[in-house]
């Protein structure tokens, strides 16, 4: 008899102990994510789809130096360069990338391109939903990666000579 009483008490204690953990966890904030029902959260330095940055004047930071392409271990960056003119000014340097493609079917998101960039033009964004049934859509063009011009920046208009004072 005494045995069964202590068994009941023991079980109740065990349940209470177990439930206390459950209750405690019910009160604490959740760590799992509701993706895809809710947007995913990222660490600051998460390496997602690249973002091509602009400078304060709204000009593209990329000067088409090809160093990202040279650093890329999977050879997924393709660039064509062109020269800025006084009438048509795209980047801050003398040269800009007229074509800038990244092939995300090859990219391994290693971040070497970001490290190589001398002008901080290419960075990793947090976009990652790029799965596709058609690999040809995985080649991203410059227009897809370039940040929008901030609303408070007027149309880029800078003098051509900006190399002084380096």
């Amino acid at each position, binding site marked *: 008899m005494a045995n069964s009483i202590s068994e009941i008490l023991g079980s109740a204690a065990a349940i209470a102990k177990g439930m206390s953990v459950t209750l405690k966890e019910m009160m604490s904030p959740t760590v799992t994510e509701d993706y895809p029902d809710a947007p995913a959260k990222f660490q600051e330095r998460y390496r997602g789809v690249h973002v091509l940055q602009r400078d304060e004047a709204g000009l593209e930071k990329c000067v088409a*130096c090809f160093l990202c392409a*040279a650093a890329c271990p999977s050879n997924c960056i393709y660039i*064509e360069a*062109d020269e800025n003119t006084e009438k048509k000014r795209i980047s801050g*340097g*003398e040269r800009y990338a007229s074509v800038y493609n990244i092939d995300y079917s090859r990219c391994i998101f290693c971040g070497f391109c970001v490290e190589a960039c*001398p*002008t901080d033009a290419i960075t990793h964004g947090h976009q990652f939903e790029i799965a596709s049934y058609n690999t040809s859509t995985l080649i991203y063009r410059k227009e897809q990666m370039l940040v929008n011009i901030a609303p408070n920046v007027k149309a880029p208009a800078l003098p051509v000579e900006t*190399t002084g*004072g380096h």
Partner: protein
Amino acid sequence: MALVNVTINGVQVQAENGALLIEVAKQNGIEIPAFCYYEGMSLQAACRMCLVEVEKAPKLMAGCTLPVAEGMVVRTESEPVVKARKTTLEFLLSNHPLDCPVCDKGGECELQDMTFKYGVGESRFTEIKQHVPEKQWSPVVFYDAPRCILCYRCVRVCNEGMGVGALGVSYRGVNAEIIPSNGDHLECDECGSCIDICPVGSLTSGIYRYKTRPWEMEHVGTVCTHCSNGCKTTLGVRNNEIVRGNNRDKSGINGEFLCVKGRYAFDFTQHPERLQTPLIRNAAGELEEASWSRALKLVAEKFKALAGPDFGVIGSTRTTNEENYLLQKFARTALGTASIDHHRTGDVVTLIDSLSGKTGQLATAEDLYTSKAVLVVASDLSQQQPLLANKIRANVRHHKAAVYTVTPGPVREDKIARKAIRIAEADSLAGVEQLREALSKEAELVIIYGDAIQGEKVRQLVAFGESLGIPVKYVALVDYANSRGALDMGLLPDLGPGYHATAPGRSLQQMLDDPKLAALWVVGSNPLKGGKSLASTNAFVVVQDLFLTETAQRADVVLPAASAYEKNGTVTNVCGQVQRLKKGIETVGSKADLAIIGLLARGMGVNLGKVDADAIFAEIAASVPGYNQLPMPVILTGGAVQTHPVNGGVPPSSVPGIIASARDTLFTTGSLTRYSKILNEVLEKPGALYS
């Protein structure tokens, strides 16, 4: 030359007395860094990178101007030397913009390399750098003064190397900068040597600017397709597009020399008027686009029907030896005609006949650099034969060679000539005779002659040379990239490959003038240029070319051909030096002439064996005298080998007026360069020979 003992970094080496320390060190595997020192050019000692420690000298000495002497003890890596280099680089970088990411030189910049190897990592200066806006001197030359380190290489290469002297230095101190001949723009040969030789990105090329980066290109070593000098050019190819031509590795007969055509005029390959599909004349008498299979079928049927003695074939001065050989073989065997010719621009045939039985009397390009004396007869070399002119200038500079000119007007070689004779081209031999006394005192001689000397005059000139009693070599000047190869391969109405007599046929002019001509097959040539017409109005004309030339407009079928940059094979330059073409790019829709001939043969049911450049070259090597003992490894690795044609002993027929140079200048070669955008842009005013 006496040898002296020199100790460099503790290692005793032997060197020629008086040799420059920087060269002695290099020969012994020790690098003394320098910017302004450039082999083959005058000394400058301006950059101070080559300072080394020499025992018993009160201060550091410039290695580039220091002749070695017995017992000299040199240290190139000691502490003061290393510090001096660092400070020199610090000074150099102090005003040099750090815009390497946008600079065209980034990746192949000597200042970058030196800074990596010898420099310091940080700048100690906080003041603002002096900035000067970039200037455009010509369509192809841009100058960025802040990047300039004032090594004067460009000034020297223009003055000494090219004999132009279009660059100089203006202002002084930190404001000193390179200035072009006409104050704000250049009027020069536009050769681009200054851009090439610039150790930094100060001088940039209008055509290559901001296009790509050095490591992004594929470098294809091939031979320039413009003039007959056969300069090796290394094409920078990216995405099936030629973006640059230079020869920085100094390989080939030309070293790093290239003229405006070799360096820039490759853009004809991308001209919008380039033919990319065959054209067939329709019932309405207009040329209309057609498929390759239809065009080839039509041509093969017609050729089969019209084959015979009235079939005319005009070959090219630009196609490869293999194509020329196969063309004449196909014409003589399958088409059964002896009427084969091409545009002849110099009398090589008579020269080879005059030298029959003798060997070693055909000069190479290298001979012009080493020979103690050179005689130029009736040619404006700097305009027509830029490499040969460059070799002569280098010879004068380095070996004090004696140069003599006999020309109808002023030429650039006059400036370096011991004696320059002004005489009409027709009287050139009388002018040469005036030099007899001076020439006979020379130890050896190379005679270069233009198209005014032909036929009997060639024999007289050779007789003159032989009577001097000194070793004499000859160069018969021709115009185009494979003019010499066309002759060697027997694109001639009376001579087959290797200058051996065959059954005679019509010459080029006779073909055009013969109203009975049944068919005319023109491969890479434009005989109707300048408003000429074909006497035979009914002749079936097939033209293979890159563009719709005057001749192609008359054709019944036009087949789009590939340029020399788009195929493999070999070409022979003006001095008979065989070099290999390497395919750099491909133009969609065009086919190499070799392939077209092969396809036509197949269409006609003719077996030509294996039609491929290597196989045909093997056949040439086996059957053409002069080409039979060429060392293949040299050719295959991009070298040049001189052929030794042996005349068959049958004097060639010599018809006056049959040989005529196109008299092109440095900026024109007719059929190709008129489609070069850049060449037409740099042309300030129409140049002329002897002006």
